[in-house]
């Protein structure tokens, strides 16, 4: 455990090395958040309540969505790809420390740095320029936090699984993009799925993506009742279990394959 904590610490320092990137990221994310806010303001102009949500809740939705996006940045797929390309897979696997544990620790370290470098500034800017994103019902906070943790794990596992495709010696640049677009558009991060036709929205509900952004955000703005949220978190947990299962299965196969072939 100590080893992994060390990795986390090193990564925090690494992530802070490039101050220009830090400020650039804040600027870019602020612009994105503000344009989104005006986008929804314009759409809602003269309309009170669309799809069961009013303009004010929608603004909260996009601010919190911007904040959450910081948690869902992963580097694990690139790390796997690099270790395969550079041929260090075998030696990494032989080490007494699990490489996936290291990648996980690195992503955690990166996120901790980003919470301070990005999340806080964006929250402050959002409060000043758009509105204070108050939670609809503060009693839902534990539920919200729990669902965010599950979301984070689902997102990380999906990234890791896409990364593992690199073990088949395929260049995964394009696949990483596919993953990004799928999550961007089908998770409700930009446009919540309740604006989609019911049939489409239902189909997408069967995929894990919705449970990354939209579920925690719905809890936050209080869309739907508690029973509904609990039911969805049930599905979220099932997805997490499924992804965990696939991950472990692939992980064991990959480890065996690498050990036998020596990379």
């Amino acid at each position, binding site marked *: 455990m100590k080893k992994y904590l060390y990795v986390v610490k090193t990564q925090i320092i690494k992530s802070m090395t490039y101050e220009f990137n830090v400020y650039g990221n804040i600027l870019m994310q602020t612009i994105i958040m503000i344009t*989104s806010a005006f986008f929804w303001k314009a759409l809602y102009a003269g309309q009170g309540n669309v799809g069961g949500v009013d303009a004010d809740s929608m603004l909260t939705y996009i601010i919190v969505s911007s904040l959450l996006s910081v948690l869902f940045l992963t580097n694990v797929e690139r790390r796997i790809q690099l270790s395969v390309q550079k041929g260090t897979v075998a030696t990494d696997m032989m080490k007494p420390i699990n490489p996936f544990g290291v990648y996980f620790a690195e992503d955690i370290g990166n996120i901790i740095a980003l919470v301070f470098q990005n999340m806080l500034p964006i929250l402050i800017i959002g409060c000043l320029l758009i509105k204070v994103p108050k939670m609809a019902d503060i009693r839902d906070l534990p539920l919200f936090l729990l669902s965010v943790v599950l979301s984070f794990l689902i997102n990380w596992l999906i990234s890791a699984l896409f990364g593992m495709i690199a073990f088949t010696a395929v*260049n*995964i640049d394009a696949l990483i*993009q*596919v993953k990004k677009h799928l999550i961007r558009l089908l998770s409700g991060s930009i446009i919540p799925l309740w*604006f989609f036709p019911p049939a489409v929205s239902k189909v997408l509900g069967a995929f894990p993506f919705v449970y990354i952004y939209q579920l925690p955000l719905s809890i936050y703005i209080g869309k739907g009742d508690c029973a509904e949220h609990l039911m969805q978190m049930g599905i979220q947990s099932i997805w997490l279990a499924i992804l965990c299962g696939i991950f472990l299965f692939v992980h064991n196969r990959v480890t065996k394959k690498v050990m036998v072939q020596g990379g």
Partner: protein
Amino acid sequence: MKKALCELGHYFEVTMHVIKMAFLTIIEYPSNIAGWLISNPLQFIVGFATIKFVVEAFGEINGWNYGQLAFLYGISVISHALSMIFFVQGWFMGYFVIEGEFDRYLTRPLGVLYQFFFTNINIFGITDLIPGILVFVYGCVKCQVHVNAWFLLQVIVMLIGATLIRGGIYILIGSTSFHTRNAVDFGQYTQEIMDKTTMYPISMYPESIQFILTFLIPIGWVSFYPVSSLLGIGNGFANGLLVPFLTLLIGILMMLLAGAYFKAGLKKYESAGN
């Protein structure tokens, strides 16, 4: 004059060879082709579906109906695709700066910016072009556009201009890495901001933002103003037949500006390994 033509011919010859090499590289890695063929169109098909759903839920967006939005979206995606083919390397300029990859361009007797973009030409950008053209044609049909030579000329002129504006912005952002000496990679964010400001009418934003997008960072000229003019949608500003040509002019100006900033940056280039 003759010397300039000769030089142009030289660049053309090199470009042809570089494109040939790009195709050879693609053939070298066939598994990549499938990936990009799925990835890029998927992004825009899903993106377009989203617009359709939003319009269905909210009605018009700021006075633009579904067909007009499709037209706008099509133009935006096509110019995006063209900028991906020629200028996407700008997103990664920081890595080239840090890794010292400009060494080789500086020791060859051609323009550095030209070599940077064209020896890394991204033929795969074509996969973005296909969904763009499909949506654009769909928008033309929905808007019952009367297609004639004059219309086509305006579309082509404005696409060239839009591509140059996008390219100029990528170069400006990329060139900052000469000064910061960091591998700046804002590609993802740039793309997201571009999407938000070129796929929807910017008239939906407050006037201050419109002002910025018109005069400071001229993204409004990529799709909004020329499309408004082509479709005859009044927006109180920049209406008239010549707007597509204005887009081209602004594109050229952006490129000149970006080129100058790049050149200034190149003076501060430090190579790698010292």
